[in-house]
């Protein structure tokens, strides 16, 4: 069972999203991440979602989604045929100014950027593939523990993966 990326173009109409999400629940497929917004054609929305499935199940998911009347097209993306990006925002509280400085320095060395820095709060943003985001979060956790056992990520918000086809 591996992580699979599915890209769906569907009519930008009320209720269309719930049909896709409902189908996943109804057929016992899981959704790991979900990302949805209108496209260059405002009458169509793009859903990018990730799920865990083997090849046979993936084929079945794609066909079931394709049956929905409002789905214009659906494609399994993966490997070299797409570029994926996810955004993560994390906040760190209860850190001293000095600690926050070294956290930000460290984060910037990982290509993250600092959005907010005040006395009691630091907010950092990182963009990368899903896997890179996982890696970034692990590194940040390790760094915080290294600075002080009491320090940890206060809140973590991930956008879900968005992806674009390469060819």
């Amino acid at each position: 069972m591996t992580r699979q990326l599915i890209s769906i173009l569907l009519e930008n109409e009320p209720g269309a999203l719930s049909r896709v999400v409902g189908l996943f629940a109804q057929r016992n497929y899981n959704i790991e991440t979900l990302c949805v917004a209108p496209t260059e054609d405002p009458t169509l929305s793009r859903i990018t979602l990730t799920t865990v499935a083997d090849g046979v199940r993936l084929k079945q998911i794609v066909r079931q989604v394709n049956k929905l009347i409002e789905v214009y097209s659906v494609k399994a993306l993966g490997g070299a045929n797409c570029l994926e990006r996810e955004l993560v925002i994390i906040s760190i509280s209860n850190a001293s100014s000095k600690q926050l400085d070294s956290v930000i320095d460290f984060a910037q060395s990982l290509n993250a950027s600092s959005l907010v820095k005040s006395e009691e709060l630091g907010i950092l943003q990182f963009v990368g593939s899903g896997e890179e985001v996982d890696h970034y979060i692990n590194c940040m956790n390790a760094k915080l523990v290294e600075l002080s056992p009491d320090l940890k990520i206060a809140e973590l918000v991930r956008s879900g993966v968005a992806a674009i086809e390469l060819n």
Partner: protein
Amino acid sequence: MAEELSGGDLLIRSLQEEGVEYIFGYPGGAALHIYDAIFRQQKIEHILVRHEQAATHMADGYARSTGRAGVVLVTSGPGATNAITGIATAYMDSAPMVVISGQVPSDLIGTDAFQETDMVGVSRPVVKHSFIVKTAKEIPSIVRKAFHIASTGRPGPVVIDIPKDTTDPNVKFQFDFPEEVKLRSYRPIFEGEDSAVDRAFKALICSTRPVLYVGGGAITSGCSELLTEFASALKIPVAATLMGLGAFPCSHRQSLGMLGMHGTYEANMAMHEADLIISLGARFDDRVTNDPKKFCPDATIVHVDIDEASVSKIIEADIAVMADSSWFMKKIETKRQEYLSQEQPGDREKREELSELWWSKIEAWREQHGLDHNRKPEIGKPISPQLAIQALYRATEGKAFVTSDVGQHQMFAAQYYKFDEPRQWINSGGLGTMGFGLPAAMGVQMGHPERTVVCVTGEGSFMMNMQELSTCLQYGLPIKIINLNNQALGMVKQWQDMQYGGRHSQSTYSDSLPDFKTLVEAFGHIGIKIEGAENLESGLKEAFSEPLRNKLVFVDIWVDPDEHVYPMAVKGGAMNEMVLGKAQEEASQ
């Protein structure tokens, strides 16, 4: 200039444009503007049911027997939720249906208003699609789309939810019924790839033990004639699913009858030993395959289906044909004719020899454990339900439309009534909805006023929608109801006998059953009670006699309460593992 109409009138005019004959429905607050529009027209007849579930089954029976979408109209809230079981029934068996539900006014949606239910949400998992009307203006185009979606591709139910304000008699729009449907995201397939047909035909010619496995999709596609011609010319045995009975004539020598859990011995054995299976509009349901890992170990699987998602869902197809069954049959029948016209005499001899060999095996299975279609009544013994179906078959000369409910009687009807015509047999195969039989028969009778329509039921199922006896009187529907009365929920009881040590938990109620003869008489119909095998033929003869032709007759046949349905697939086994009778069952316990 086109005339201006209110939302209610736009709806009814649109239904008229679609050629709708009947609306099966029940009025209520949110649907009253629509009901007023119905009152002010003559073209469409509204059938007033006694419960909304029955309305959906009637529309379903009408749809399955005619091939045209059935139409249901219900009010919001309980009217809509009562329709859900029937919508799910139609969805599972791919019956075309358009369900119109009234909704509370738009400005009250989401406020938990009186009789408010999120119908689009509640029905979502059991519809092919649904619409909610935002303005009356869009009603004609939504109706057009709904019928198109319901009737094309793999058919199914479509819901149109109509808030009361959009049918306001004082707000009028031009009536403009679209000629074409524009749905860029809905492109149902019909034609498949020629190369897949080539491969399928080659596989067939190379096979020595082929079986055609035919499902409901073959009936929907209307390919029965082609199928019969093709199978006959190449002497291929044909096994049908519960939904596929009638696609190929059951009285044809090459028909193996039904396959699956209660399928015939020869059908299941042939499937298991086949080296090629051509599946036509069937979906490898768990009631057919039993354990998919043990399914047909030697067979190359050709899977023809209009629904892409059905192909390779349960069993991986070796040759997948995503296409309408009639398209496939046309193509492969042409191939067959070409092939036979060029076949060398030596090849023909060899092919026919191999076919003889395969048939001698099948005939041996049929001989050993096939169904006994010539049972004789045993005087003084309770009527066997199988015998009752055989007597019914004779009394109707095999020509009736037969609907059924769900349970043992359904299996006996499927096994012993030989359906020779597509659409002749109508039952709830997928969802297994008790209470389906009577209202479905009513819809069939509406669609076919001149035909004999029989509902085979059991007293358990019948009591789930018997209020419709009143509707039958109102519209003069001369349905013949054959009640196989075993004073129990027979199939539940059978499973309890076989798997729960005979503990009949909540499956019997013999002390509290009504006298059905008196009951149906109270509804204004004719009741006949038959007890004792010696009275079976004469009782049925009376039920189908000329003086009672225009009457609804309820025949209450008291059958052997201890009878089980055999063969029965062994749980978790392969298709060739079956319990064939009580002796075998008792020996294994």
